[in-house]
């Protein structure tokens, strides 16, 4: 039982990472109807920006190393600008083109960011610090160490990721559901022409969608980097899981993205634990196939709910 609980907890921690990136994917999909394959590489790129601020060598010039949270805020700003500029300069010329065309453009961005990052910072993995400890009335947040929950243990950093993922999810949900801008963004994604006729600045909404998504991705990158070491391909594995998580939860649902991520993390971890020879005495399955098992779960869910757990079916008038 202890093992089970511990594995579930570890799975939740991994799942929160998937959920964070899935949130960024859902954000762009929801506001612009595009699957962004460059999401992971954009997050990696912004995380390198944060690393430069923290490390004290900004583009080859020596600067005073910044405090983590100052660097964090600056990186968020950088992410917002990056997303907005990408949308205006790269995505705007292909706006309204077939979706596959836009998907290929994001694949192009994927390559550009991979290349630029290797070019600027080299391929050697770099350690990225986790957020430093903050003490609020005697209770410490972030920092090193781990928290005992009953018989199980979870590190503060894992806990931080979970809290951040759920926090961003709630904010986004409220944003889309209860603010006029959120409503305008949803309208833009569903029907740009009708939205424009209603007086919505469609172009601005698309820019905002990319900016927000890049910012969420930047947070994700900074949370994940301490776990996997900062290097150009650090987001590749996470990105594929994040896609799966987003689809599992429903491409247009921020809560779905996080829940999908958590489910994926837990399933993957439990399958990995309980299919070893110790527990399962068969030839045809083993822990090395945990990814396959997780994917089978997703496909089964999609068979029953073709638009994911929380996704809404798109209705069309004929």
């Amino acid at each position, binding site marked *: 039982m202890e093992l089970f609980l511990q594995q579930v907890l570890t799975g939740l921690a991994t799942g929160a990472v998937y959920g964070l990136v899935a949130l960024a994917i859902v954000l762009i999909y929801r506001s612009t109807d595009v699957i962004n394959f460059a999401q992971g590489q954009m997050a990696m790129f912004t995380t390198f920006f944060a690393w430069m601020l923290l490390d004290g060598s900004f583009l080859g010039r020596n600067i005073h190393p910044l405090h983590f949270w100052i660097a964090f805020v600056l990186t968020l700003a950088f992410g917002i600008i990056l997303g907005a500029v990408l949308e205006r300069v*790269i995505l705007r010329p292909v706006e309204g083109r077939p979706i596959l065309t836009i998907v290929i453009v994001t694949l192009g961005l994927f390559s550009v960011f991979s*290349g630029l990052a290797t*070019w600027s910072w080299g391929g050697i993995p770099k350690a990225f610090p986790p957020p430093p400890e903050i003490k609020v009335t005697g209770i410490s947040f972030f920092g090193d160490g781990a928290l005992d929950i009953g018989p199980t243990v979870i590190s503060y950093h894992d806990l931080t990721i979970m809290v951040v993922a759920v926090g961003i999810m709630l904010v986004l949900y409220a944003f889309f559901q209860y603010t006029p801008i959120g409503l305008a963004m949803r309208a833009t994604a569903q029907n740009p022409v009708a939205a424009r006729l209603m007086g919505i600045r469609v172009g601005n909404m698309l820019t905002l969608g990319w900016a927000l998504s890049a910012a969420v991705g930047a947070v994700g990158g900074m949370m994940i980097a301490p776990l996997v070491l900062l290097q150009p391909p650090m987001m590749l594995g996470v990105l594929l899981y994040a896609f799966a998580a987003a689809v599992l939860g429903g491409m247009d649902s921020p809560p779905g993205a996080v829940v999908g991520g958590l489910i994926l993390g837990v399933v993957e971890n439990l399958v990995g634990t309980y299919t070893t020879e110790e527990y399962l005495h068969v030839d045809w399955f083993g822990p090395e196939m945990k990814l396959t098992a997780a994917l089978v779960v997703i496909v089964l869910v999609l068979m029953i709910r073709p*638009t994911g757990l929380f996704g809404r079916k798109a209705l069309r008038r004929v």
Partner: protein
Amino acid sequence: MLRTTARQRRLLAFVLLAFFLLYWIPFSNAFPGWVPVQFGSYRIFQATTIAMWAIVALGLNILTGYNGQISLGHGAFVALGGYTSAILIFDHNWPFWATIPIAGLLTGAIGFLVGLPALRLTGPYLAIATLALALATPQILQKYEGLTHGSQGINIDSPTPPGALDNILNDTQYLYFFALLAAFIMTIIAWNIVRSRMGRAFVAIRDSEIAAQAMGISVPRFKTMAFAISAFFAGICGGVYVQVIGFVSPRSFDVLQSINYLTTIVVGGLASILGSILGAAVFVLVPEVNSLLEGLHLPAADQAPDVLYGASLILVMIFMPYGFAGFIRRVGRLQPPLVMQSLSDFFGQVGLRVRTIRPNGGGGGGASSGKKRDGSS
């Protein structure tokens, strides 16, 4: 200006193309001085790769371009075809030529089965479900060692020129003709499929499922059929791949490859036979640009290829909305020199159709009006 009819121009293009494929590429080395550009054995191998890649691109284009279903999992089908062929040759001593149709048919059958659950999925959901297929395949191949020989893969001997051909062709040239023949046959098949009743049904379903249904087209039947046909092409490609490379392992078919197939057909031109082939050529020849760059000795040139590749993908999509095939069509419509006009007429004949694509089944009004760019005069 020389006055020619479209028919004459087509004939000229056909002769030029046949000369290029059948003589210039494979034999330019043997007869130095006869042709201006020499193709060494590495170049011949590249041409072979283009032919292989074109086969899977044709199949994927039938599914995605003509039928509007996105697949990010075609690497899995290629792997299945490759392993079928390799196992039959290695463990059961089949002659290589007999294994390739089997590889295609078996993969087609599996494609049909995959097409059944895919019926319920559209857009990103279908894309990720098929991506899951591509992700899981290497793990499965590695796990079932009894059948697949696990992670060390299977080595087979590439076919060598039989009998009398041995004096004329070396191994590289023989494999080139072999892949070219396969690609030629598959192009003819694809061409016939897309111009048949079935091909028109595919397009009708892509443009509007509801309208297609109203016209009496069985949507599930044709959608699964498109999957089966597409997988059949991928299986054939896998079979040819094994003969040419002589080796398969779980690592031969990673996810990136499946994604690259999709890029190939979009860059080449969706819903276009010529586009599939051009896309394959572009993809195989991209590394050439890199080696050109390395020759320039720019700073950090070893990182530049990624940036350059990404940037050119973006530029192609911005400036050639219908891919290379659409671009050639447009160039051919200007006042072109004879050769260009010939090629344009010729490919107009072999079924180049560039239409607007709406893989998600399209939005509301005007979705299917599209730009129908019809064949030649």
